[in-house]
């Protein structure tokens, strides 16, 4: 898998970094950075007191979208605490701030030449599936016309 990761570096920025054999010291910076070195906790409003309420309909929708079973008390608690944790960012003032989707925005996306270099590994790919039939993956029935 590591080999794959190495092959699939997707931007110039990444390919230019040299792999050093010795153990990396992540605390020590080789390049200047604008990223604050200490987390800015004060900027987050404290939302831990906010009660998270979920109606059964939303829970049902979440279960369907995420394919996760939220029936048990523990699963529901985990979900609520996750929402509470993420809720912090919704209270931050972001008016007139251009959204930053990735720190690599200024980098050029690396392009690959149109050559066939992969594939032909049906055995390996199919070996991940629980049920197969004549080289097909088998799944529960999908979206089919209503009258059938």
């Amino acid at each position, binding site marked *: *898998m590591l080999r794959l990761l190495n092959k699939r*570096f997707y931007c110039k920025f990444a390919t230019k970094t040299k792999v050093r054999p010795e153990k990396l010291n992540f605390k020590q910076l080789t390049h200047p950075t604008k990223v604050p070195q200490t987390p800015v906790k004060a900027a987050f409003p404290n939302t831990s007191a906010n009660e998270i309420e979920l109606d059964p309909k939303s829970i049902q929708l979440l279960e369907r979208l995420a394919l996760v079973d939220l029936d048990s008390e523990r699963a529901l608690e985990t979900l609520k605490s996750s929402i509470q944790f993420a809720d912090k960012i919704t209270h931050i003032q972001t008016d007139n701030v251009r959204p930053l989707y990735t720190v690599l925005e200024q980098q050029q996306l690396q392009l*690959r030449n149109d050559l066939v270099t992969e594939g*032909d590994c*049906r055995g390996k*790919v199919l070996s991940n599936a629980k049920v197969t039939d004549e080289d097909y*993956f088998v799944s529960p029935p999908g*979206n089919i016309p*209503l009258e059938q």
Partner: protein
Amino acid sequence: MHYSIIRRLSTQPKLANIPKRKWKSVVGLEVHAQIASASKLFSGSGTSFGAPLNSSVAYFDASIPGTLPVVNRKCVESGIKTALALGCRVNEVSMFDRKHYFYADLPNGYQITQQRAALANNGIMTFPVITPGKKVYYKTAKLLQLQLEQDSGKSLHDDQLKRSLVDLNRAGLPLMELVFAPDLETGEEAASLVKELILILRRLQTCSCKMEEGALRVDANISINQEGDPMGVRTEVKNIGSVRSISQAITYEINRQLETVAEGGVITNETRSWDAENRRTVAMRDKEVLQDYRFMPEPNLPPLHVNLKPGSKSTEDLVSVAALSIEIPELPEDTRQRLVAQYSLKPETAIILVNEPILLDHFLSINRSLSEVPTKVVYNFLINDFLTYCNKLNLNVEDCSINAEDIRDILKNLHGENINLQAARQLIELLHNNPTIKVQELIDLHNLQQICNLEQIEALCQQAITNQPKAVQQYQKGKSKALFAIVGEVAKLSAQKANMKIVVECLEKLLKPPKK
């Protein structure tokens, strides 16, 4: 009670005064065109149609953890070329997004597409609309967006065992999605738009446009509303598999909606599938609740930059739009105008020739190699005889074995008065049935030469005159049209082989009233 009756009566004429408003249909198209490439959009597996099941699948296509997408340069270039040909504004920066839905043939659980910032926007397409029995007219539709995205795998539904069989060969194939504004009104307009799009994409060689292989797929959004009202609730018709089906499916769906409303029903926002066999649309199970695709930026792909500077050159990781714009060939509409200007064709003739690329090739090559034959004879024969013959057999002109050389030989013989038009038509059929035999051999073999020998013709004419005494009498009385009956008789007697020009001259001479 009494009062209410009077009231009702008094409102009656008022209602009748309100003019009945016409219903209008609104059609918008979404086209998915598979970009012609050797490898997939984000992985290095192959794209050939009909490859063994699950063989063109890279680890990335099967969503094996740890794999990452790398964009295929050719797909970006093809997308830009198509965008330029359709008059789009190409965006300097476009971005990739994840569109989530759970589906067995979508191993990642999301599709990588472009939602926030597409490759190109604001294009326009103007195309001739051909409706049988009506005058050809031009229609314009705006192209809202052109985006790059991956295809999903393919599912086969096994009704008996209640399961789906999934082949991932298609998963990750490169697609261009073209979203058109709802500027169309009828099925024919939609079919004509797609027909023109196919011509353009084939010229650009950015898509094979083989609808039977799913390389070009059309979804139609259809709604109806009364004149002056806002647009009605739309339905989406999917699974339209041929140009002919586009017009049929949309016409069916418009009529279904009109009928539903006439019966007091309500149109619901739903996805319907076109059933080509029974020629109707069928509701699909999906979209009972509005889907939440949970779009989010694709974290594994930084934005895609292109170079918009005029005169720039492409570099390793930066595609130049200016460099690509030079590579764009002559587009169908330019060809039509060139044909009209260069050969003084009627616009309708130019449209027919351009819409059948093979016909156009034949026309141009015959014109080059056989300059002595007037162009009018060439296109008339190609359209009225060759194309008509193919249509009669329900045969695609592309699939017809008769090549330009054969047609040139026929026209050469026709122009040299070696054969007549009947024989030329017969030769098309003979060539189609005997693709290995040459035209000259067929003429000899089936004795198709035109009879030009004057004595022979005179003998035939004499025979015809004795066979048609009534027509001769009428003709000599001054009814010149009666001559056609005698000419027809000669044609019959000569097995359609006599040179009609000579026959007419000969008959006129023979039937001339003796000088007094």
